[in-house]
């Protein structure tokens, strides 16, 4: 079993998506990360991260559509 943590939110009911993402992020230790998979540009999520987790997260776009968006989200500070 491995390695890259993959949080695919395409199957999650809409109202549970952001809470699930932030709960997963909260479980990370500094230096750890997961890859978020979504079916649309997660720009609003990034704004929410910048507001609620300023200076504590990394955000690296791995794939930008048109069917799938992938972003590596990491915890950079405790």
């Amino acid at each position, binding site marked *: *079993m*491995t*390695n*890259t*943590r*993959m*949080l*695919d*939110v*395409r*199957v*999650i*009911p*809409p*109202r*549970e*998506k952001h*809470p*699930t993402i932030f*709960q*997963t992020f909260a*479980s990370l230790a500094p230096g750890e990360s*997961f*890859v978020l*998979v979504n*079916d649309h540009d997660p720009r609003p999520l990034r704004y929410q991260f910048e507001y609620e987790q300023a200076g504590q997260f990394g955000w690296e776009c791995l794939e930008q559509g048109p*069917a*799938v968006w992938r972003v590596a989200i990491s915890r950079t500070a405790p």
Partner: protein
Amino acid sequence: MMRLGLSSAAARDAGLGELIAACVRRGLAVLELRAGDGHGVELEDALSGVLAAEQARAVGVEIAVYRASAEEDTLRLARLGEALGATLLLDGAGDVTHRALRARRLVEAGVDAAVVVRGAGARHDARVVTSLGLAVAWDAAPGERPLADDADALLGARGARLRHICLRGGGPEAVLHEGRGVGALMGRLALAGYAGSLTLAPGSRRYEVAWQIWLGRRGGWGCGGKAHDRTLVNLAGT
């Protein structure tokens, strides 16, 4: 790395090409084929498995699992599993020990196999399967029971043995399952580093219209008939 995919149960009459196209359109990486659906990959014809695997692979989709009854002939199952390069899911309503022993024969023959568990007995059945050193495939149905506790149990000590999940109620039905543990399941899979496949399938035939639209399928019903069947639910626009 977990891979999300589509079950042929979502479009039982669709050919393989249509299933693959739906995967590409939705950005899904893997396919689950059920014996008896319209994809054309038959237990009696291992060559159909070779051709199907090549057709899917050409556009970056993998046929990850093939689901069949544990009562099928072991040799035919083994040949098709090898031809597809896929994990065989042994399904059936009977005793889980019987299915597990059939799976073990396949594994001993060098073919990857997993035993399907579901419902209230999933945890117990998974213990039986893993005690025999075999992999588990879980049919998770948020419409029938909350997923969180089962997910914890199946991902716990037996996490390494959980090979495949079929989410019966994913895709266009996701909006209906708020509070049923789908979000918690996906979070737990991520944190556990789950590296298996997860395919989407209907929770009920009532949602066929929603699935037709979600998969980009058009028409095919002619005049009247199912298009006016009030038992079918249309979730378009939700």
